[in-house]
């Protein structure tokens, strides 16, 4: 885990209102695995840091993807290039992709695309064939950047690709990795119990001490999205007890 003082050095729009921002974080770039996240803080920001999956790594840079879903992300998107950011990471356990499977499906909904480019890179480096399945409400909401040997689009309104969910559009593969709204991940669990899914929760510390990011487990009890997670075997999560989506707080 590293604490890096950095700043936003580039920003690009990859879907309607969805942006990728880059920052220098050499130690994190060198060690992050797909599915791990960083916790970002900035002066005059909200009290708590905000967690983001690492989207892509480019040399000493890491990238994250975000939308203005609340006050914190709105502030982050409004910051200027060069403004200072404090970046803590890499945090949590990633997908842990290893040799064995011949094919992997990377299934994402909306912002759930976040861990997928890194997952694609890791899978490909192990000789695994990558199917990239990405869904959103409408064509404009689809993340334009892809990284798969095969790319499948899905939209709720049918404006691009498959009409329906990314889960319904996905082919069967040896390994399934998914990220998106929790109700989408519950659907993944129904179809592929052994899929590895990255969940989203509210988070306090990001380092395992506050127990705020509780994930209810099928075997009973809770563990921590920031420490044991955020990646889980899909069938291990008690989806009925995990809030199906987050109501992002907009602070006054």
């Amino acid at each position: 885990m590293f604490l890096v003082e950095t700043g936003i050095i580039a920003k690009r729009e990859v879907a309607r209102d969805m942006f990728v921002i880059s920052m220098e974080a050499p130690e994190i770039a060198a060690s992050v695995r797909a599915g791990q996240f960083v916790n970002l803080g900035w002066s005059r920001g909200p009290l708590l840091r905000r967690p983001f999956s690492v989207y892509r790594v480019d040399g000493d840079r890491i990238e994250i993807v975000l939308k203005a879903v609340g006050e914190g992300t709105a502030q982050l998107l409004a910051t200027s290039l060069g403004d200072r950011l404090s970046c803590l990471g890499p945090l949590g356990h990633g997908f842990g992709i290893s040799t064995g499977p011949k094919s992997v499906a990377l299934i994402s909904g909306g912002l759930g695309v976040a861990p997928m480019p890194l997952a694609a890179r890791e899978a490909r480096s192990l000789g695994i064939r990558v199917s990239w399945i990405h869904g959103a409400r409408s064509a404009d909401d689809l993340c334009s950047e892809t990284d798969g040997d095969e790319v499948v689009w899905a939209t709720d309104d049918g404006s691009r690709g498959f009409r329906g969910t990314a889960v319904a559009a996905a082919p069967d593969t040896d390994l399934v990795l998914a990220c998106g709204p929790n109700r989408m991940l519950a659907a993944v669990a129904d179809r592929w119990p052994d899929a590895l899914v990255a969940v989203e929760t509210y988070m306090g510390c990001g380092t395992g001490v506050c127990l705020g990011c509780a994930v209810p487990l099928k075997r009973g009890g809770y563990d921590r999205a920031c420490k044991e997670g955020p990646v889980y075997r899909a069938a291990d999560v008690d989806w009925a007890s995990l809030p199906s989506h987050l109501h992002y707080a907009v602070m006054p």
Partner: protein
Amino acid sequence: MSVAIGGLTLRGPVLAASGTFGYGTEVPLLQRRALGGMVSKGIFLRPREGTPPPRIAETPSGMLNAIGLQGPGVEGLIRDYAPRWAEWDFPVFVNINGETAAEYGELAARLDGVPGVSGFEINISCPNVEQGGLYFGNDPRAASAVTEAVRRRTKLPVWVKLTPMVTDIGVIARAVEAAGADALCAINTFVGMSIDLNAYRPRLSFRTGGLSGPAIRPLALHLAHQAARAVRIPVIGVGGIERAEDALEFLVAGCSAVQVGTATFVNPRAIAEVHDGIAAFLSSKGMAELSDLPRYLPRD
């Protein structure tokens, strides 16, 4: 910058607050050199699952939490954590909880003598099942009964963490002092609430939560000061401390040491920065020791 707190000398005046530092094993080492001590996550006799999510909600300059004292129970703590504490160069206090005064006593008796356990911080903000769920900490007799129950079962230092949800903190402070507390920690979180305007219901599944963070700092400072005025035993100030200046306010207002909590979520170096900032302040004012710091503590 060592400080004496009820028979125990701490190497520095800054401690990690309960619930924000886990059992000390999750946190990167960068905080440790500056730690005067730490207080563990609250523990009950038996393991507890905790409350369903959402457990936290951010509010202006603050954080509400309702974790439900999730934890491994005392046997898990003794097995998994105490042996590691025994190797550390700062004392670890165990934050103890119970549903009856007798449970607190049993917990203290079980932990007394366990290597690695340096003392107790009694959380009196628990509901007392023998009194219909009234909080121990709101009633001087119940607060004093819990303190006595622990005091009788251990020779280790006993601190009592006061709740701010009272009409006169001085009354509770004096009651637990008389019951044998070695020091007070002032204060625990305020009970708060936040509503989700999409769902028309509380943002926390538990409905209410404990408010921490800089939002409570002036309230905490006032209550810590009131507690310090009421008693002769040391008071450890806690509530919204982020920077050395915040800690110095508590120290001037009559506290002997401070705990830093929520700030460490935001700034993993907060404890070290508070510690070093206090030292730098003293040195800039030409003071050799923390005891040279002028105090504002008119006695009641």
